[in-house]
């Protein structure tokens, strides 16, 4: 369960930026290629944030779908999970252009 250590990391970042203010919401940006389970993070969040300035706060997950760009024809597409081939020109020379995001973007404080 890597969600526990990830949740601790999110909490440390949020508390470190909140100062003395109460945290109401933590805004996360998570790409498709970053593997975490939202419900599991929220579960650990409720436990770890108890008795801190983040107790009772909400985690907001902005999910970024995976996106690939064909190096041959420039076509931008979402991978279907079975192949990374460009659906426009069948080239396998493609690169990941979105989906690696894994960060705390902001916090909402009182």
């Amino acid at each position, binding site marked *: 369960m890597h969600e526990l250590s990830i949740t601790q990391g999110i909490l440390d970042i949020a508390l470190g930026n909140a100062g003395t*203010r109460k945290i109401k919401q933590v805004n996360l940006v998570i790409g498709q290629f970053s593997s975490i389970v939202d419900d599991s993070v929220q579960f650990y969040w409720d436990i770890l944030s108890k008795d801190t300035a983040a107790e009772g706060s909400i985690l907001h997950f902005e999910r970024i779908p995976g996106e690939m760009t064909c190096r041959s024809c420039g076509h931008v597409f979402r991978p279907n999970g079975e192949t990374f081939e460009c659906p426009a020109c069948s080239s396998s020379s493609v690169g990941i252009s979105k989906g690696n995001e894994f960060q705390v973007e902001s916090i909402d404080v009182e």
Partner: protein
Amino acid sequence: MNTRIPIIEKILSANDRIAARNREVLDHAGVYAINIMASPGAGKTSFILKTLDALNGRLKLGVVEGDLASSIDAEKAMAAGLPAVQINTGGDCHLDAVMLADALPSLPLQDLDLVVVENVGNLICPASFLLGTHLNVLIASIPEGDDKPYKYPGMYMGMQALIINKIDLLPYVPFNMEYFKQGVEVLNPGVTPFPVSCKTGEGMDVWADWLVGKVNTQKNNGT
């Protein structure tokens, strides 16, 4: 009235900072370190022991074994004459930088050329948690199937060397090497693949020679 504070910080930044310190410790001791990642049963421990054979005394190895429980792997490494330390993660599905920081003092770093870290068998998250090693090595094995790059892209993006193990099974197991390599190339263009068999020893000398080159290059750079 709520106020929004922009942050934009990588969630694993605390781990990454400790990983950077681990790298400093390794570099200060003049030791190269590799992080071996794979699914359970891909042959990580066998591969480490076969690497030891193929190196034929050219490098002095120490081993860090990561498992949820048991000291089976560390005992195998010690039986082969290697200094080894076992990390039991309890339930965590990966090693992290703190665990390696705790383990490194148990190894005689000044007497070693190479530390081999055997990560927990898992294809989901180990590549996300930097350890401070110089090289992430992913072992794929033929019986796992040729679709793993497509199913576990994070791991295939987070490595710098790819071992394709159990190639002795290619005649018996359907495995489309071209399809596999296409996925790898998209996720990690130009990565070095090493087809090997820990059973027959095929390919191990090529890998060992390459590894010796990496270690010597690092030493010659004086870092």
